[in-house]
């Protein structure tokens, strides 16, 4: 009987020892894979200060690099590569340089050009062909070109077109003395005469330009 009692005690002691061992290695309460760390009820009962402290603790942990997901909008910053889809042949060309011009400004140029053609009487076309690797296979330089055909049949081409050029022309055709820049503020068109001459292919007359 005494032996049985001792055996029972030893057995109980073993059970206690194993359970203590188990406790040492078990996950703390509330930290199992199925127990939520955060619940709606917990958030509901927390004060702003408590949440703020927790967020500040989170801030100490390294954040993963932002990844691009399936978003509806274009990324805000200039992309490392830019895609150009040709309005003539429909093919896509991928670029590693001039990506902000291709991704952002080119659309703007098209819109400015469309606005400009509503005002000016000149026959004009915006030539994008050098951007297309299909249409201009051997182009060494890609730039927007403004082609003008005058009523007498003569033509003029101006390269390196940017949005600001087309905006200046729009205001020029309106007969305005100044134009709205791409940022806030207006600028006198008078200061842009040399560029306007380049764009329109109108040489300076020696008599007029004399000081």
């Amino acid at each position, binding site marked *: 009987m005494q032996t049985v009692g001792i055996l029972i005690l030893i057995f109980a002691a073993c059970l206690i020892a194993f359970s203590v061992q188990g406790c040492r290695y078990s996950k703390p309460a509330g930290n199992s*894979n199925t127990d939520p760390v955060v619940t709606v009820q917990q*958030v509901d009962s927390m004060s702003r200060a408590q*949440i703020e402290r927790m967020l*500040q603790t989170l801030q100490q942990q390294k954040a993963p690099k932002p990844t691009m997901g399936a978003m509806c909008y*274009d990324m*805000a910053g200039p992309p490392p590569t830019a895609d150009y889809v040709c309005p003539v042949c429909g093919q896509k060309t991928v670029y590693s340089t001039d990506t902000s011009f291709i991704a*952002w400004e080119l*659309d703007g140029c098209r*819109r400015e050009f469309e606005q400009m053609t509503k005002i000016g009487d000149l026959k004009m076309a915006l030539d994008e062909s050098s951007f297309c690797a299909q249409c201009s296979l051997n182009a060494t330089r890609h730039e927007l070109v403004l082609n003008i055909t005058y009523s007498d049949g003569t033509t003029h081409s101006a390269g390196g077109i940017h949005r600001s050029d087309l905006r200046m022309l729009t205001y020029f055709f309106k007969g305005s003395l100044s134009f709205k820049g791409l940022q806030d503020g207006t600028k006198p068109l008078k200061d842009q005469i040399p560029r306007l001459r380049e764009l329109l292919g109108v040489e300076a007359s020696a008599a007029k330009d004399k000081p």
Partner: protein
Amino acid sequence: MSDRRLAVSFLPGTAVLEMTYACNHKCLFCSCPWENPDSGFVRQAELTTDEWIETISTLCRMGVTRLAFTGGEPLLRPDIFEIIHHAAHCSVEHIETVKGRLESHQGPPLLYLLSNGTAVNETILLACKEYDVQLSMSLPGLRTYARHTGVESADHILRMFTLAKSMGMVTVVNSTVTRINLFELADTLSAALLAGAEQVLLNRFLPGGRGMFHADELSLDIPQIQQMLDTAEATLEKAGRFGSVGTEIPKCIADISRYKRLQVGTRCSAAIQYFVVGPSGRVRVCNHSPVQLNHVREIESLQSNEYWNRFVFKKYMPSVCSDCRDFTACDGGCREAAHVVTGSTCGLDPALLQAGPLGVLHDRPSSTAAS
């Protein structure tokens, strides 16, 4: 390789694959066009497993390098991971810029799964981890979760964020912001980030789908959109995390230069950066669009499709925006939301319908950040 090269095809780099019309939620804000019987959207037979596999193979051959699985609820398809398995074993050419030159390398497409989270469990998470799928789960509120989704509690979603994090996964919390849940946006995002989500994708409510019938109670006005952005920015700042807004905002509504943690876009990228293959295989320019174009079997024909090209070449600005100083740097908000509400892709973004474009009619919100 030089600084430019002809792409494999005209297709955008990201394809959003709507795996099914079915969903286990009944979200008030749901913009899936098939949830609005008045939209003219016609449901057709869903693609079979083999058809999806063939579609994915075709898209990968045509240069698509990112695949986003969504729906409806994609996890309701019993074959979803059979399809994802196939996608994960495709090989695509990833092109990137290295020191100013284009370089390419072969590899599997980048994979994303956008789920409402209710069907997510440990097995699903393990599968996402195995196939390197970035998981995004929807959390449109805490106290208002049930009202928005028809599902009782958000606790399960929070639990899944925690479990995913414990498995070493980076997850995204996708929160649609409405007038009803705006008051708790800070708590919603905080809860998700504290539970383990690492990034935030914010979507302002835009009428469409089922949401058309709840537009009055859900739509955000301009000050509320600004509050949404400021709240998200502040929460991300506190948490040291980053996020983005999933739909473009008209530039006259928000001074985007003030947001350092939250990426806010002002231009539409439908048919440019991404496009959608619907549950029956019909292509659309974006998820919000009710206009079904060619079937994906005839995807090459999209090149000559007028509606598709309207988005590729951005021929969709509201005429009233033409005097705005940002006319050439902004797309006037969501074009398809404008289309759904006004009947025209050249209509005003729903947020501007009452106020009018601020650049023309009102003073702009003041900027407090350095430019």
